[in-house]
């Protein structure tokens, strides 16, 4: 059995980074909150840099509970989209060169989200990582955890259910 020569690492990285950029760059609300995503292989970490406008309780001060819910939801939704996109890229069924602002992958729709607030959000950067626990043909269940200074001291977690966009564009 012959193996073709592996692609240069830079080309693979550039392809994956571009796909991620297109996925996230087109969503105004992600830009509004200032969320960015760090990628290590297929693993994503969402980063929410602190900003004064994210404050919900100016006396403590603490991050707004709604910001935390939104941060968790965005992270879960992007992780789910990314896992689908990743699989398609690896299988070669999707060419990331064909992706641009006008040809975005369709985004999953949130069915529900349950947020568990564990500690008040401090006025500093927050991080989140999501795990797709189940992704079927139509539905997906995603768990997401957020922390600030210590990875082991979560400040919030959530579970959400999502409707996966069908391949032919029909929902």
């Amino acid at each position, binding site marked *: 059995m012959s193996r073709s020569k592996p692609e240069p690492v830079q080309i693979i990285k550039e392809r994956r980074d571009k796909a991620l950029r297109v996925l996230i760059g*087109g*969503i*105004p*609300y992600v*830009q*509004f*909150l200032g969320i960015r995503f760090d990628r290590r292989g297929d693993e994503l970490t969402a980063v929410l840099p602190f900003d*004064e*406008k*994210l*404050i*919900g*309780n*100016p006396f403590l001060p*603490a991050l*707004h*509970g*709604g*910001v935390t*819910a*939104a*941060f968790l*939801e*965005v992270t879960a*939704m992007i992780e789910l989209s990314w896992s689908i996109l990743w699989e398609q890229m690896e299988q070669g069924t999707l060419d990331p060169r064909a992706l641009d*602002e006008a040809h*975005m992958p*369709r*985004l999953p*729709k*949130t*069915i*529900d*989200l*349950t*947020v*568990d*607030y564990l500690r*008040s959000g401090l006025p500093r950067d927050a991080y989140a990582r999501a795990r797709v626990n189940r992704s079927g043909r139509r539905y997906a269940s995603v768990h997401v955890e957020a922390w600030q200074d210590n990875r082991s001291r979560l400040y919030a977690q959530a579970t959400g259910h999502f409707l996966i966009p069908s391949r032919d564009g029909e929902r």
Partner: protein
Amino acid sequence: MSSDPSPAQQFIDAVPHAKALGLVLEEITDGCAVMSMPYDERFIGDPLTRVISGGAVSALLDTCCGAAVMSYPGALGTATLDLRIDYMRAAKPGQRIVARAECFHATRTVAFVRATAHDEDEGLPVATASGAFTMEAGSRMKEATT
């Protein structure tokens, strides 16, 4: 300056994120709050459909629920413990979203709240929420016998 903002609007203006979302407190009475969020292109979650992000709707619902708790007789402070949001349908692009929250039960330590969010179509809600909030109660608080 045209006129002093109402106490209700002062409540919103004191919360930087509520201000960033352009929230307007429409009504507030004992344990009930009505709050609206204008349609803003910065809050779009799906560029293909131009529908507002679920996250922005969550932020509106959370704020409205918190306001409902704060307006409960005797309440001094609150924070979200748990919030579940169900998304029934996409909000119509271009329309503002109005949330109504009711704190239907509270003890000295916990407040229970439910809320709905509608666009201009008063029929099926865009989303509903149900949550538990912490309650920091003053002496006026009527303790339920639980």
